[in-house]
């Protein structure tokens, strides 16, 4: 995972709630066995509508997606995170996320920031008034800044540290390899064994 400490970019206002992972990337794109190249699947049904916000050239090149509550609910497909990253997004801002999507995003270096609904609405208004307006996300200070406004956001210390250092989870867990082996000797004898 690439290190993430701060990001400055322009933003796309996605004025929708309950953007489930089937909208972020429909199941037909999940048949691939690769980990890259999912940008064509991102919001593919909605992108067929010329009025959809991602089709507005004013937002071309934006790297921050600002969405309504319950973003990324539904399916566990990590492809939703890959599609957002492959399309060029580095940060998503929403009042609330689906749990599995949030976990997936933080493991892949897509920063998912939780801000209150009021802050999201202020961001929508500002970005719509001036699509070239820069939004700054500072993971060290845990702040979002835009047009002189500052919103603090919460993120647990461990997830923040992993993002700042770009750490690999499996590597971190293998620090505990001895504990895993020790635990395995204590498992109940009636436990399921598949083979």
């Amino acid at each position, binding site marked *: 995972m690439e290190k993430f400490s701060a990001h400055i970019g322009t933003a796309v206002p996605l004025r*929708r709630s309950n953007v489930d992972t*089937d909208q972020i990337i429909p199941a*037909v794109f999940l048949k691939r066995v690769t980990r890259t190249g999912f940008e064509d699947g991102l919001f593919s049904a909605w992108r067929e509508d010329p009025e959809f916000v991602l089709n507005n050239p004013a937002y071309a090149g934006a790297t921050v997606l600002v969405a309504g509550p319950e973003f990324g609910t539904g399916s566990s497909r990590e492809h939703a995170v890959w599609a957002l990253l492959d399309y060029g997004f580095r940060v998503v801002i929403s009042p609330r*996320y689906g*749990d*599995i999507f949030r976990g997936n995003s933080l493991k892949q270096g897509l920063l998912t920031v939780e801000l209150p609904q009021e802050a999201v609405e202020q961001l929508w208004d500002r970005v719509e008034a001036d699509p070239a307006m820069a939004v700054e996300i500072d993971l060290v200070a845990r702040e979002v800044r835009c047009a002189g406004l500052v919103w603090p956001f919460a993120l647990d210390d461990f997830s923040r540290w992993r993002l700042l250092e770009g750490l690999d989870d499996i590597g971190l867990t*293998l620090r505990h390899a001895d*504990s895993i082996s020790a*635990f395995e000797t204590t498992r109940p004898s009636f436990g399921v064994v598949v083979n």
Partner: protein
Amino acid sequence: MSRTLAQKVWDAHVVAKSEGEPDLLYIDLHLLHEVTSPQAFDGLRLAGRKVRRPDLTIATEDHNTPTDNLLTISDPVSRTQIETLRKNCAEFGVRLHPLGDPIQGVVHVMGPQQGLTQPGMTIVCGDSHTSTHGAFGALAFGIGTSEVEHVLATQTLQQAVPKQMAVTVTGELPADVTAKDLILALITKVGTGGGRGYVVEYRGSAIEKLSMEGRMTVSNMSIEWGAKAGLIAPDETTFAWLEGRPFAPTGAQWDAAVAYWRTLPTDPGAHFDTEVHLDASSLTPFVTWGTNPGQGAPLGDVVPDPESFGTEAERAAARRAVEYMDLRPGTALRDVAVDVVFLGSCTNGRMEDLRLAASVLRGRKVAEGVRMLVVPGSAQVRAEAEEEGLHEIFTAAGAEWRFAGCSMCLGMNPDTLKPGERAASTSNRNFEGRQGKGGRTHLVSPAVAAATAVRGRLSAPADL
């Protein structure tokens, strides 16, 4: 100290606990399927890692598979994904039940049916409906592909300690109301984000009276209201269901297992961070009208007016939903005509679901112009249903009797809605395009699905 069921299962699986870090949890069973695993196996190969515990890992093919035959996967991309799973399982020594195998099926139907799902276990799968296995008092949840790779490599997961919620369902479900109606009503009450950050325990007299199939339907949809997992305390119903299944312990091991399982239910006085109450006796058949599982209503109601909702976010979502669903506010839900009825999925693809639907369809016909697909959740469900003659009832009614798989639940195999088609579906998600691009989904119980097939409009058996 008094602990909840979920806390007991959690505590029994903590491998390492460090200040300021998530707990490291041991995983007892890792279920794999073709969609969310290929990139994880690639990751292992790149890092030169092995599957740590192939003996705690099992795979099947379900999402991409056709349900009209067992031999030909016509889409080359789907075929490649299936072949990739087969190669990966062979290379890494993972047991696989492929298409055509007598045990193959939707992963969350296959696991419990084989007795692989047992109380007190930790179970994960790269699929959000892994919550299904919580019905046995297991801590079971869906994970992404990075975590699949993590479990393959280490048999553990880093997990932050969740909050605890109790959903207490008192009273008794009326005769024509099912577990599906119960969970749909609950999701509409609490909203799609209502369970976020919580492990939930479903309890109370109405839950205790449910069969294992009914409990699995309830736990299955935990993720649809955002819960991390949805557990139900193991009891005599659980033990009776498990005993004698292929992977269930036997003899003295069975006795030891049951003795342990009896210690798992929540202690009196254990603390829940949040409690939700629902009265089962007040419930009626329940369906969804919108494009998320929280947009539902009793079948006897009308399509709601989007302007009647409390917040602007809800109003905007409802406006968009009724437009997508092509519904007019005020229309009686019983007047909504459907093109397709889908009976199946990890939510409602088990024997009890098929029996219930067959009891409604017996001696009746699927309405002219309606297509009904009956898709058993596993090859074994299909075989059992045929032994009971259920397939003859379905085919005599004019429904299609198909092979096991995820089928029309998710629009990833040839079973899809065409743009504009409307379905009554026993699956779990009514998202835009979920069952095929431009398709419209109403989530219903197996009883409502069968009655709807006969009348051609959303209906309960009492309407026939």
